[in-house]
Each structure stands twice: as structure tokens, then as C-alpha cells.
């Protein structure tokens, strides 16, 4: 069974450092390859809010809309979504420079990423001192996801009902036309009014198709919520890592101190066996202290670099989150305005059709 392949016609001018531009040919990519690209970006740019992919399966479907992944309308909307995904990456100040992204656009190859950290992204960690900003962001992304899915569900139902209202009017067309056959005076008026009822009924198809694009815009941000969560999780992971390392270091320091002073407060296997099988020699103790001191040194180095890494991550992540916020505000506002524009167009069409129909009725 084959998935429908999406053809990309990307004519992308890429400037090399030596000033040469290269035009790429078209090449074929399937949805799962896009998924791989995104997974790669998630791993290598954990602080970036990575643009989401369009939905894998058709969701929030109102009854006339097909839930079939092979349906031409769905495929077309998916194509637009995928194109949008790539354009978002291309316009991102950091992601656009990524080599793998460039290769994705230009090379026909199949790349496999076996990164255990990919799997780690899905694990949950209990972090002692989470950064409040990230906790808030996580809550926000949860709220965003829930409110947009609710909105999309209701919108689908509203679309369904609206479809019903328009289509039933089409039945008038047929009956009026049959009736006009037996009416002498009313006949013409009935016939032409019936024609307008048909026009009205068929106008809903375009109207709802336009609305699907609006729904897709919202869906993108529904999926962006997941991307936000990924960044938060990465932060949690780093924080957890840091806390574990700090904890480990502290415990080693404690052990060292106890060994040096002779007091045993912390539990250690060595301490236990010593108690059971007899005291160790001063040389053995010295050796152990030396090992521990080395480990402590290493640990302190690691902690320092982890701290640095953590701070870098937070700084970069937050920069991208600010960028994302502005993008989101712009995009959503634009989407809402485009929704209003669609409603206005629908109303104007309605006024025209019913004015025509009224004229026909009044001539009966």
C-alpha cells in the first residue's frame, strides 16, 4: 500500500558563501520524510519552537468533508500545509541555515536518525526548581491546545449545519420549476426564482472550502502548542540533569569528608562491608579519597558546563519563544480578520441571491 506522494516544486535559490546561487530541481518527498526532518530539528534545536506539520489524519471533519487521506481536497490542503511548514523554516533566522534542511530540499536521500535523546524527549521528569517562565509556558500551551481543538470541533458542527440550510433550499428549485409548468401567470416568476434557489444552494460549497483554509491556519497553532511543550520538556530534561549532577556531586563531597574525618554519616556499600568484614587499611582509605577527589573535580567541571549549557539554552529558547509569540499574534490576528472577510463575502453573496429571488417572486 502506497501513501500518496507529495510533489514539491521548490525553486529555491541558495546562495553559497562564494556568491554562487544554485537552483534546485523538483523532487519527491513523502509525509514520513517530513516527519523525520522535523524530529531532527527538534533534537538539534531544542530551544527553538519548531514549526509543526499539518495533520497526519483528517480530524475535525464535518460530515460532508472526507476523512479519507487519499481524498483530493485533503491532499491539496496537506500540500499547502507542507509548503507552509517549509516556508516557516526557511524564514526562521536560525533554522534556515541548517545543513540538513538544505539537503532535504536538494538531495534525494533517506536519512535515519537514531538518537536516544529523541525518545528521552517524551519522558517526564520531576524537576525540583523549574523555571517559572517555562511552567507558565507549558500551561499556556495546554490551554492553547484545548481551546483551539474545542473551537475547531464546534466550527465543524456549525459548518455541517450551514451546509444543511443552504442545500435544502436547492429543493425549492426543482419543485418551483415543476410547478411553473401548470401556472400561467406565476410560471415565469417561479421558474426564475427556482434558478436562484439553485444558485444559493450551490454557493455553500465554495464558502465552506474557503473556511477550511481558516481551519487549517488554526490547526497549525494547535500543533505549535505541541512544539512549545517540546521546548519546555527539553528545559525540564536539562534542569533534571543538572539537579541530578548537583545531587551526585554533593553526595560525593560528603562521602569524601566523612572518609577524611572518619565519621560515617552517609550510607555507602563500602562502609557497610567495612563494618561487616573489618576496617580497611589507611592506604586503602587514601586511595579511595583520591578517587573521590578526582571524581569531585570532574563533577564540578561538568556541573559548571551544565550550568552554562542550561543558561545558554534558557537564553536562546526564550529568544525564540519571544519571536514565536510575535509570529503567533500576527498570524492569529490575520486569521481572524480573514475569517471576517470570508463572512462578509458570504453575506454579500447571500444578499445578491435573495434580492434576485425577491424580484422574481414579486413579478409572479
Amino acid at each position, binding site marked *: 500500500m502506497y501513501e500518496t506522494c507529495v510533489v514539491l516544486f521548490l525553486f529555491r535559490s541558495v546562495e553559497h558563501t562564494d556568491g554562487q546561487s544554485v537552483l534546485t530541481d523538483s523532487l519527491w518527498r513523502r509525509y514520513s520524510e517530513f516527519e523525520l526532518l522535523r524530529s531532527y530539528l527538534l533534537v538539534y534545536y531544542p530551544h527553538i519552537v519548531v514549526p509543526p506539520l499539518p495533520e497526519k489524519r483528517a480530524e475535525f471533519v464535518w460530515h460532508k468533508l472526507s476523512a479519507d487521506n487519499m481524498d483530493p481536497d485533503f491532499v491539496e490542503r496537506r500540500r499547502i500545509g507542507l509548503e507552509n511548514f517549509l516556508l516557516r523554516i526557511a524564514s526562521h533566522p536560525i533554522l534556515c541555515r541548517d545543513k540538513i534542511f538544505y539537503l532535504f530540499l536538494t538531495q534525494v536521500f533517506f536519512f535515519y536518525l537514531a538518537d536516544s535523546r529523541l525518545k528521552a524527549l517524551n519522558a517526564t521528569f520531576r524537576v525540583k526548581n523549574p523555571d517559572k517562565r517555562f511552567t507558565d509556558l507549558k500551561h499556556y500551551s495546554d490551554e492553547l491546545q484545548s481551546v483551539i481543538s474545542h473551537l475547531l470541533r464546534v466550527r465543524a458542527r*456549525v459548518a455541517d449545519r450551514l451546509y444543511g440550510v443552504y442545500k435544502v433550499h436547492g429543493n425549492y428549485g426543482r419543485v418551483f420549476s415543476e410547478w411553473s409548468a401548470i401556472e400561467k401567470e406565476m410560471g415565469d416568476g417561479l421558474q426564475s426564482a427556482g434558478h436562484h434557489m439553485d444558485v444559493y444552494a450551490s454557493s455553500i460549497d465554495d464558502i465552506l472550502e474557503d473556511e477550511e483554509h481558516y481551519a487549517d491556519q488554526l490547526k497549525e497553532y494547535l500543533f505549535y502548542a505541541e512544539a512549545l511543550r517540546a521546548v519546555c520538556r527539553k528545559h525540564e530534561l536539562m534542569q533534571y540533569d543538572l539537579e541530578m549532577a548537583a545531587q551526585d556531586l554533593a553526595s560525593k563531597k560528603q562521602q569524601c569528608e566523612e572518609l577524611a574525618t572518619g565519621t560515617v554519616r552517609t550510607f555507602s556499600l563500602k562502609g557497610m562491608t567495612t563494618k561487616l568484614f573489618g576496617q580497611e587499611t589507611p592506604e586503602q582509605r587514601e586511595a579511595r579519597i583520591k578517587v573521590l577527589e578526582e571524581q569531585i573535580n570532574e563533577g564540578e567541571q561538568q556541573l559548571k558546563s551544565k550550568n552554562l549549557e542550561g543558561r545558554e539554552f534558557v537564553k536562546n529558547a526564550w529568544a525564540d519563544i519571544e519571536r514565536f509569540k510575535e509570529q503567533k499574534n500576527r498570524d492569529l*490576528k490575520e486569521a481572524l480578520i480573514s475569517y471576517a472577510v470570508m463572512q462578509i463575502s458570504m453575506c454579500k453573496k447571500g444578499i445578491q441571491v*435573495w434580492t434576485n429571488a425577491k424580484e422574481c417572486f414579486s413579478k409572479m
Partner: protein
Amino acid sequence: MEVFSKDASLMDMNSFSPMMPTSPLSMINQIKFEDEPDLKDLFITVDEPESHVTTIETFITYRIITKTSRGEFDSSEFEVRRRYQDFLWLKGKLEEAHPTLIIPPLPEKFIVKGMVERFNDDFIETRRKALHKFLNRIADHPTLTFNEDFKIFLTAQAWELSSHKKQGPGLLSRMGQTVRAVASSMRGVKNRPEEFMEMNNFIELFSQKINLIDKISQRIYKEEREYFDEMKEYGPIHILWSASEEDLVDTLKDVASCIDRCCKATEKRMSGLSEALLPVVHEYVLYSEMLMGVMKRRDQIQAELDSKVEALTYKKADTDLLPEEIGKLEDKVECANNALKADWERWKQNMQNDIKLAFTDMAEENIHYYEQCLATWESFLTSQTNLHLEEASEDKP
């Protein structure tokens, strides 16, 4: 003298004023047909349904107020209470007295679909409006308006009406008439004159079409109602969303209020449909059934004549009295046919006007609905672009 009443939109008649058309379109309609001066001298309203409970049954009565300047009425104002049974009686008497006139239809006895209890408020209100229409149609009819039973119906007190009802042909004789009618109507069909064949064809086709239109219109109402129910949920979600978005609060709240306003406009469109279009179409569904009955009665009268003629031709029965009988029947047939022909023309004219008006009103409701929604969204758009311009000018140094 014809007065074409347009009273489908009359509802509360608390003031005792003559029927005032309430929609501009109906006013235009009245003006169109008032070539002759307005000779309306009988005004009837049906209102105030009341429930009556006895040991045997529960029933509803309606108050009927009549105002008239006619001499044959003892007074100029009457107020009586009637129940559905009384209306049925009146209709029966009118049909008896004028078998080939097109008697206005009564609302149905029961509505089978979706009836939970017999007397829910919507049912009573729909029935009241239809009964109001029924009496006014009779009042506007050039012949029926002078019917004696009609006068008694409008003016007699309850006990007077009961005693009056008891007079007249008994149930058994009425049943006998029906049986004879069925038997002989077939014969009448065979000799039906050309114009009545045409009429019958029209009635059959019209009946089909109006029934379909009735179903379609009811369906549209149902779909609009369901659309309204879903829309009610749609606006508030945007308010919910605005709670988590600092920068989009105003935009989202504005969208929510636009959706709510469109919702209200939908509600208005629905009620317009249920007031202007649905009752009119439904009345004509009932009319189409009436018409078939009228055709049958006409055929039956003709059949009576034909059977006597046959008897004379084949010398079946006592032929002495036959010629005289035949003469009387020939007159009867001619009267019946002429009455029907005249009434048919009148009915058709009325039908065309009523249908035209009902659909024009429906179109008007839709136009108004879309205009309201358009205004709502356009003002939203303006406010958004103004905001944008304001923000842009603020950014400039």
C-alpha cells in the same frame, strides 16, 4: 366586491381596532387591490385560548370578537367562546349549504409527528392563528359571509349554539349522503366537462407541489434551528480563548460579539419564516385537500342528474315525474358549476397573491439577515484596521 385580506401576521389584537396590515409588503398588496373602496364591514379576531377541565374531558376554547356595521346583526360588537368542535360544525354546515364553493380549510385535528401532549403552547398558538384565518376568509368570501350559520356561530351564546346545532339533518342521514356520494361520484367523473377536467388536473398537480413545498419549508426551519443551536456555542469559545491571550484579547472578544449578533439575526430569520411562510404554505396544503372534496361534490351533483337522465332514456323507473326532476337537477348542476367556476377564479387569484407574498416575505427576511450580518462583520473589520493604523502611528517617532 373583493377585499383581499392579508392577515397572516396579525397576532395580538388587544385593541379593538380594524385589521391593520403589519408588514409593508402586505400594505402594498392591499393598495393594489383596492380599486373599489374598502367595503369591509365585518371584523373578526380569535384570541385568548383557555383551558377547560370537566370530569369527562379537557378542551380549549378561543375567544371570538366580532365587530360589524351590518344591519342584519343585532348589535355592533359580539364576544363569544368557541371550541374546535364548533368550528368543525360550522365548516360542515357551510359545505352542506354550498357544496361547490371552496370553503376555507380548518387546521388539523391532531398533528401526529412530534406531539408529546395534546395541548402544548406552540400547538395552541398555531391553531389559534389558523382559526383566525379561517373565520376571516369566510368573512371575506362574497357568498359565505352572509351565511346564516356563520352569523349564529359568531353571535350566539353557548346554549343557543347547542340548541341550534341539534336542528338540521341527523347523523344517519348525513352518513347516507356520504355513501351515495362515493358511489355516484365515479359516474360524475366520466361526464365531467372539459374545463373541470383541467381544473382537476391543476388541483392534483398543485396538491403534489404544495405538499412538497410544505415539507421543504419545514425542513429549512429545522435546519436553521439546528444551525442556531450550534452557533450559540461558537461565540463563547472565543471569549474563553481571550482569557489566555494578552495581545489578542480585544480581537477575540470582538469576534465573539460578532458571532453572537449573527446568532440573534438567525433567530429573527427563523421566526420570520415560521410566521410568514410556514402557515401560508400549510394552509394551502389543507386547501388542496378541500379542493379535491369540492370536485367530488360537483361530480356527485352531476352524477345525480346523469342517473336520472339514464333512467328516462332506458325507461327504468316511473317516467312521469322524471322530466320535472331532471329539469330541477339541470338547474342544480348549472348553479353548482357556475358557483365553482366563479369561486375557482377567486381562489386562484388569492392563492397567487398569498404565495407570492409569503415567498417575497421570506426573501425579505433573508436579505435582512444577511444585511445585519454584513454590517456586523464590516464594523469589526473597520475597527481592526483602525486599530492597526493607530498602532502604526504610535510606532512612528
